[in-house]
């Protein structure tokens, strides 16, 4: 099936976003807008906070508007009483539901502008094919990635250059919004198969191989906590790992303690992780955290019924409920 994707040049999308932001600020529907802007390099589209309608021209929509703006709402809400407008992709919108379900966000204080998303680009994949220093811009048009490299224009099939997490995305369209910025796109066909592929690959190893595999991954962990800090499901005011009394996690970067951190982090998002994959993407050390999160999702789905977090903020996550006839992963005799 030919999938429906973003059809016209990104400039028009950006224009649309600017227009919505401008109207919302001018009409005083919101006092601030959280979106994305362009920075120094072609691969940088960080989150930006705007309050002045004159600044909305900074906003962009391009293949690198990846970082979720959602978690910033926590700080925003604490420091400011007014309503804020936020642009969210499909994955980001599930973050909104995550915060709502966790009672960490007041829905009426946010105007959610849903942005259907055809997938974001992986700078590493692009760098492997094109000299990074010479790239001027990268644009997604239809199913094609258009690169300005030096003086020439290169057109390549986008799919090969998208982030892995986008290739296995099940909800490219926002699941909660006040306004949909443009028409919905259809999810990728092969998203379901690719969802647990890596988990199954690791599962198929024997115990000692699995341990060696994960040990190699966690060995690189520098304990920067970027995975936690970026995760909208990790929204505790004071994280258990930051507490000194009792100290749940030692500050020394010891292998066992690193394992402790990753086990408990994954446990805390079990049944709550909505698979945005940001933990893995932003991990400076390339630890495949999504594999761990998805293992838990798979386990919960198999044992307690399919559940997808971040779709319905009113339900109870699987670990907050039970059924008498639940199966167990251990000897119940």
């Amino acid at each position, binding site marked *: 099936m030919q999938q429906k994707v973003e059809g016209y040049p990104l400039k028009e999308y950006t224009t649309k976003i600017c227009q919505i932001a401008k109207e919302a600020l001018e009409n005083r529907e919101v006092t601030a807008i959280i979106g994305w802007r362009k920075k120094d390099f072609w691969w940088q589209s960080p989150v930006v906070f705007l309050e002045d309608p004159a600044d909305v021209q900074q906003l962009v929509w391009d293949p690198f508007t990846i970082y979720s703006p959602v978690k910033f709402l926590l700080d925003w809400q604490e420091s400011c009483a007014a309503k804020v407008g936020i642009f969210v992709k499909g994955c980001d919108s599930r973050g909104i539901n995550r915060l709502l379900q966790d009672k960490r966000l007041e829905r009426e204080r946010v105007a959610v502008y849903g942005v259907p998303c055809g997938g974001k680009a992986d700078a590493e994949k692009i760098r492997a094919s094109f000299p990074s220093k010479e790239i001027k811009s990268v644009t997604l048009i239809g199913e094609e990635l258009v690169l300005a490299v030096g003086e020439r224009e290169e057109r390549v099939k986008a799919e090969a250059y998208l982030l892995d997490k986008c290739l296995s995305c099940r909800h490219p369209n926002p699941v909660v919004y006040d306004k949909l910025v443009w028409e919905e796109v259809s999810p990728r066909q092969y998203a379901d198969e690719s969802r647990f592929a890596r988990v199954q690959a690791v599962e198929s190893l024997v115990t000692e191989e699995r341990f060696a595999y994960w040990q190699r991954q966690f060995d690189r962990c520098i304990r920067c906590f*970027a995975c936690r800090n970026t995760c909208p499901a990790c929204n505790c005011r004071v994280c258990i790992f930051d507490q000194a009394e009792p100290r749940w996690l030692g500050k020394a970067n*010891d292998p066992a303690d690193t394992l402790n951190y990753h086990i408990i982090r994954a446990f805390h998002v079990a049944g709550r992780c909505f698979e945005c994959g940001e933990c893995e993407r*932003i991990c400076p050390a390339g630890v495949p955290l999504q594999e761990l999160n998805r293992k838990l999702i798979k386990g919960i789905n198999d044992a307690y019924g399919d559940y997808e977090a971040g779709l319905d903020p009113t339900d109870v996550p699987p670990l907050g409920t039970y059924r008498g006839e639940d199966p167990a992963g251990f000897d119940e005799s």
Partner: protein
Amino acid sequence: MKRIAKANLAELLSAMAAEAKLYVPAESDGIVNFVSWQEGLAVELAALNVLVPPKKFFYPQTETVLKYEMGEDLQIEDFACKAGEKAILFAVRPCDVSSFAMMDKVYLEEPPDEAYRRRRENTTVIALGCTEPDEACFCQSFDIDAAKAPGADVLAVDTGEELALVAQTEKGEELISALNGLLSEATSGDENKVKDEQEKIADRYVTSVSLRGIKERLAGMFAADYWERLYKRCIGCGTCTFLCPTCHCFDLQEYAAGNCGERIRCWDACMFADFTQMAGGHNPRPSQKERVRQRFMHKLNYFPQQHGDYACVGCGRCVRKCPVNLDILEVIREAGGGTDGL
């Protein structure tokens, strides 16, 4: 100047490993880090900066300071005096080599940190000159010549098929003479080739910043609204500090069990909420704003005030790795010389 064919590199490394513990950059799962060399390990020479900067060899992420046992009398075992195994770091990039000088200012100033001093003294640093900076490299702006690394004991230059090696210190001379059997003398042609390579790099930077007046500008900016705008997207992770070759703040922790205990020193990050958390609950840097300000003030104002140098070598790790693209380039540009974006 000596030279060796890159094809014979393994032999050279093997010989070095016989001299001391040898660390080389190597790739695993797409990430390049310094690892202990062993026979058969592929050395990664093309990658610019390894992920975790080599400061960890002098100032490890976690180290034991002392162990104690309480009984009839208190027994203490000091670990600082045991630190400093003989080691060689191979292929350290010049920006990282420059960072050692900065760390020295902190840890070798009187009274020197014993463990750091011992490790520094017992380690021979072989720098690998750069030829092709990437877009996030801006060491040039800090007057670092990426082709040269004056602080290194030995400078290696990649001339294509060969590596040229120049001893720059006594330690370096010693190492080179120990390896002499494997090396051949460079010709004047080789020397010219090295010179050529070294000269080309100056024009290959695409990124630079002007530091003119930055220290002074920042001195007046402690209360500026700028930080209010800047900090908002910081997520408070430790990526920038842990990957920064010049960040050097630590925490001391006690691991006690029964009557025994161990005191450790480990990296800490001023980006973390608990960095300045005090026992009574008070936190003088209550929000991320103060923390972000602290980091950049420290790098560009406090440290230069105390030590005369900026605490940045333009290695670009924070530029590449910050999840939200909040990096020192942005701060220097927006707060610093030449730019009036405030």
